[in-house]
């Protein structure tokens, strides 16, 4: 069942079009990620769903009801902000119960929900502290607690992990995902980190400059990116987008359809799909070697172009070495150079 629906939503600030004809649905119990670079409009979309802004045109429906002009309080949603938005003058307990008190939920019910949230998030020792005396991760949990006790089935998250260090981010990612599944919450999760989106989301909406680039599962976005932008955004290190110059064509023309030109086409291949070959392939010179432990990223050059590949573990290559790179035909992604769109191909 579609719990949240956006139809032809536009948002314009003065002369700037923040969102352009945004259409999507979010199903019940799903974690939907809104992914994109800074300024692409993902936070704006979230705020429109929350009711903190109103769209310039278009409608927003929650559970079948048109909420486009309804204030946030009446939409029955909860939200976790990037900076947590904890009230500095209240203790953790008061912060969590803030909304329940405002909505005049009876005291016994309040206590029950508080105990439940505290249990789930491990906050029992922190209840009397004020936010200033909490670490980033703890504040994050309090913000989550406040969202959970509201017991609204929809939870909106605006880059909740971006202020945490890498290790904590990974822990909290898993915690949030498991919480979402356990409580069967419909969650819309805004992030600029493709790793978060890939690991947590049931579906991802990739947004660029106020337009939806692609809407699909993590697999869809990884295996079949619809545009060059999507291809480069998902996956780390990003996909190599190459111009089919003479060198490339000499080695790979057999794998490609006819009529490929450097002006109108681009070839995409992921670093992890490239192998070092003995015989066939393209000759490159190694420029950089970055050892990561489990993998090594090798930056190479051929002609004017650069190409990155990853190999497992460490190897005996050095900067300046000449090697030959090869890949399989079904790892080639073909794009139109002008529009950036994926072409039906191999």
């Amino acid at each position, binding site marked *: 069942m579609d719990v949240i629906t956006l139809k032809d939503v536009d948002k314009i600030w003065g002369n700037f079009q923040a969102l352009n004809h945004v259409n999507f649905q979010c199903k019940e119990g799903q974690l939907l990620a809104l992914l994109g670079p800074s300024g692409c409009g993902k936070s704006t979309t979230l705020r429109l769903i929350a009711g903190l802004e109103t769209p310039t045109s278009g409608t927003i429906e929650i559970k079948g009801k048109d909420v486009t002009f309804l204030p946030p*309080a009446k939409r029955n949603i909860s939200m976790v*902000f990037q*900076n947590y938005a904890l009230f500095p003058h209240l203790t953790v307990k008061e912060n969590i119960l803030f909304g329940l008190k405002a*909505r005049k939920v009876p005291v016994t019910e309040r206590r029950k929900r508080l105990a439940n949230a505290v249990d789930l998030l491990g906050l029992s020792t922190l209840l009397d502290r004020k936010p200033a005396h909490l670490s980033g991760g703890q504040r994050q949990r309090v913000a989550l607690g*406040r969202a959970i006790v509201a017991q609204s089935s929809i939870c909106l998250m605006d880059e909740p992990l971006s202020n945490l260090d890498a290790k904590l981010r990974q822990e909290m990612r898993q915690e949030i995902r498991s919480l979402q599944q356990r409580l069967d919450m419909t969650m819309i999760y805004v992030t600029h980190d493709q790793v978060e989106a890939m690991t947590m989301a049931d579906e991802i909406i990739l947004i660029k400059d106020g337009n939806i680039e692609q809407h699909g599962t993590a697999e869809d976005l990884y295996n079949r990116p619809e545009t060059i932008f999507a291809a480069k955004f998902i996956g780390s290190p990003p996909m190599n987008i190459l111009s089919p110059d003479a060198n490339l064509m000499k080695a790979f023309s057999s794998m490609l359809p006819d009529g490929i030109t450097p002006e109108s086409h681009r070839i995409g291949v992921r670093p992890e799909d490239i192998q070092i070959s003995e015989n066939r392939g393209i000759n490159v010179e190694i420029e950089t070697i970055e050892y990561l432990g489990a993998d090594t990223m090798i930056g190479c050059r051929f002609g004017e172009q650069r190409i990155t590949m990853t190999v497992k573990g460490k190897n005996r290559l050095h900067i300046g070495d000449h090697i030959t790179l090869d890949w399989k035909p079904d790892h080639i992604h073909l794009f139109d150079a002008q529009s950036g769109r994926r072409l039906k191909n191999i």
Partner: protein
Amino acid sequence: MRSWDNGTQKTLETIGAWMLGILWLIPIVFSFWSAFHPAKFTTNFDLFAPLTIENFIRALSCAPFPRYLMNTFILVTLILAAQFVLCTLAAYGFVRFDFFGKDILFALVLLQLMIMPETLLVENYRIIKSLGLLDTITGIGIPYMASAFGIFLLRQSFKTIPKELVEAAQIEGVSSLGILWKVYVPLSKPIYIAYGLVSVSYHWNEFLWPLVITSSVNTRPLTVGLAIFAAPETGVDWSVIMAATVMTTAPLLVAFILFQRQFVQSFMHLGIK
């Protein structure tokens, strides 16, 4: 050469500060001296002169100082309460809502800051008279209740509150007034304390306007009562006048000594904003 200059500068500053401090203290010390010693020792600074509270007794019997004290107390409390309510609501309006004519209105508020209340004496008197509030404590207080200074301070304080907190409260279902009461006001506590101290000390010491408006014992504040008491018609008995003065300034003095830190902090706070 430079460190020598710094040292000299520090010494000069310290000496200057001490001199200023002593200069300020002299009148207070004199008034205490005069109040607690019999009349003939007013200018005779004999260290072993006998202490007495006779001056206080006489002062109390000549004029109803307790009544004056109560009037002043009611006056500053009334003004402060009204200011808190009115300035809070006004500042909230300016910070959270956009409405037609907002900038002009705020400019008018700032205009009030530039006008000395004394210039409006006659006009205020006329208005208070037409309201029928002559010679009432309310009448003394009304011109000051919508304080531009208060509105300005609170607006600055409210503006520092991050919008996210407001949004979080909105999503939790709190009404606009609820957000004011539960988020803005608690977070501006230092400003309220600072402003409260400023307002109380200003209105406690105010003289000219209450003199104009009041004409009876029931409404006269301490400042006016003391001035009338010290007027030549009753004779210039310094020790009794000093006793009266000590009685009227003592409450504020004690409050200042007790709350020194808050006073200084609050003025610093205002400066930072």
